[in-house]
């Protein structure tokens, strides 16, 4: 925990892609980089899924050679667009703010590229946008173990940190306090008991067998009392984790919601049920910070 807070946001990876480019992401990275005196590494990803889709859809109507030719042309043009227009614009903005900045343009599958880049460069924060319905597969937000900030725009300077029976709740409280202090933002802590998935997740992220509501309330009480001893007040609520979070974010007018390593039940039989984090990123009108 100490290690995390000491290295808080010194090397920020900012991601834009051919599928989604948001100026809010750039603005937020500039804000954080200036506040925390961090370096920015900008990554432009030429998402390969539309190119695969192109080949798949045209496979019957155009030959292998034709498809390869048009794919290469598209990649070349996207690289030029990124290099000559988008990166130039962003570079200019970073330079006017005296922010240390480097960039890469990489073609590949979004999440794979992000995970590989973080592994290579040891970033301590990832900032990106989230676009519902585009071809990007955002599995990275469930898998990566550096914080991921999903920027949605907005100017509210307040943080809502979410703890629940479905997360170990080890990092979120102290990390949120640290961040609120660094940014000088207001902080509120909320503990949600998810009644639809009534298990308890331990410090190692392991789910317990089903618990009674009484047991879950007791566990929450222990958690709340522990934080109160440290002088931190915690609001409590019961319901579905995602719905209660969204409701609380709306009522408190949070600018950023921090969510930990929740272990909500996944789809049965291996069917692709969207993870809670992706669901929230899709629905939310406020920024999210996932700490795995």
């Amino acid at each position, binding site marked *: 925990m100490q290690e995390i807070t000491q290295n808080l946001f010194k090397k920020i990876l900012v991601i834009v892609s*051919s*599928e*989604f*480019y948001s100026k809010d992401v750039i603005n937020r990275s500039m804000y954080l980089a200036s506040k925390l005196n961090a370096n920015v590494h900008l990554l432009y990803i030429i*998402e390969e899924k*539309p*190119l695969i*889709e*192109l080949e*798949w*859809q*045209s*496979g*019957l*109507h*155009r*030959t292998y*050679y*034709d498809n390869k*030719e*048009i*794919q290469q*042309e*598209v990649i070349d*043009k*996207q690289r*030029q*667009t990124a290099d*000559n*227009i*988008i990166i130039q*614009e962003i570079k200019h903005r970073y330079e006017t703010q005296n922010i240390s900045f480097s960039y890469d343009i990489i073609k590949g599958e979004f999440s794979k590229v992000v*995970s590989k880049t*973080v*592994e290579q460069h*040891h970033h301590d924060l990832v900032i990106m946008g989230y*676009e519902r*319905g*585009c*071809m990007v*597969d955002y*599995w990275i937000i*469930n*898998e*990566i*173990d*550096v914080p991921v900030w999903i920027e949605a725009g907005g100017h509210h300077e307040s943080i809502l940190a979410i703890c629940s029976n479905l997360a170990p709740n080890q990092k979120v409280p102290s990390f949120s306090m640290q961040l609120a202090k660094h940014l000088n933002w207001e902080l509120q802590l909320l503990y949600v008991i998810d009644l639809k998935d009534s298990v308890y997740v331990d410090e190692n992220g392991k789910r317990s067998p089903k618990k009674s509501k009484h047991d879950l309330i007791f566990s929450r009480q222990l958690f709340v009392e522990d934080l109160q001893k440290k002088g931190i007040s915690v609001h409590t609520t019961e319901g579905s984790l995602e719905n209660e979070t969204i409701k609380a974010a709306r009522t408190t007018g949070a600018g950023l919601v921090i969510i930990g390593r929740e272990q909500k039940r*996944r789809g049965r039989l*291996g069917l*692709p049920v969207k993870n809670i984090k992706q669901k929230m990123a899709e629905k939310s009108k406020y920024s999210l910070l996932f700490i795995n």
Partner: protein
Amino acid sequence: MALTPMILSPVIHKKRFNFFFIGVTLGILILFFFLPNPQGLTHQGKMMIGILLAAGILWITEPIPLAATGLFIMILQPLLGVMSAEDVFSSFGNQAVFFLIGAFIIAAAIETQGLHKRMALALLRRFENSPRMLTLGIMLSCASLSFIMPEHGVAALFLPIIISILLAMRIIPKQSNFGKVSIISIAYGCSIGSLGTLIGGARNPLTIEFLSKAGINVSFFEWMLYAMPIVFISLPIVWLILQFVFPLEITDITLAKNEIEKQVSEQGSMKKKEFLVLTILVFTIFLWIFLSSYTYFGLAGIALLGSILLFITGVITWKDVEKKVPWGIILLYGGAITLGIGMQRSGAGAWIAQRLFDIMQGNPYLVVFGIILFTIILTNVMSNTGAVAVLLPIGSAIAAEMPGISPLFASMLIALSGGLAFIFIIATPGNAITYSSGYFSTKDLFKAGTLANIACIFIIYGVAIVYWKGILGL
């Protein structure tokens, strides 16, 4: 930094789904085999409906390549006792297949010699006056070239040209309405243009072949006569819809103009081989328009004559043909033709038509509207040719049941509606090709495509009732 392994990678999901859909397809065939025959339908007819459903599922979900589904349909019919192997395979060898082969070879020559790019730039140059005119120019140019080349080739030709223009104008992808309209205009222009002649889309020759089996011959010129009004009404209306959905934010077109001029000057003067291709193309189109209705010449004969002339003059080699001709579509086409024949001969088409007829209570106007609507929905979720192949035998059978609707009328409704897939990326290769540029989102396409498709439903309906029925007496 350690990453935990993914719960289930998308590739594994895709493979699992592929097996699932193949299982569903086989399950349907087994179920149909053991189901009792419905009243008025033979065992062969019942199995043919099962094959139609199986083909529909495979064409929509694509667990195997579309062409392989075409082959699967061909072997299923003799295997399940619907048609003899001889009948199935002999129906593959028809005039329209060779028309397609000839048309593909001619298109390959146009592309190999770069004539298509010269024509594209020449057309675009006429629309450099304003941003709005340029987007109209893109749509009209794509449509015009789709009269003489397969639509997907035209989309692939225009995409790099237009991206270069957008790059020169420093347009940011997905954030500029001008960028969105310019790129979507390519996809929609190609789709609309492909309706105009028999060359634009493979579903057009499929339709005339289907009609010829029913003893109705449609010449190259007659097709244009029926289809062109829809093209020329749809183009400006769809363009206006794009302007309405994405109001253009730029006013200065100078950089675009400079880029077009730069590309034109890079082309240089017309080369001898380009001139030869152009001459043979004009000659072939002339023959298609004026001589294709003659029994001893025909569409395929003219297409192959044009192809042979290209080889004789040395403007194309067999290597070029191997690189440029998509043989897979011919196999899909073969499957689609046999599907139609099987539906007709087994009485399955007539049986389905009777059920639909009962639902629509015999109202011909409702039936016409229903055919257009259903075709447009289906073509948005599966291959255009597949959608037309599935619906032609049903439409034709409906025509037989419904006084006032001829097989030609119903088939043209399906063929032309089948080319208007505007809503989804997966709907047609033109949409997928243009989407890959990154200038518009799936939401943008959905928004514009839904409105454009609604408009086109009414355009086809209006043209069908007023022009085809009222004036041409189809």
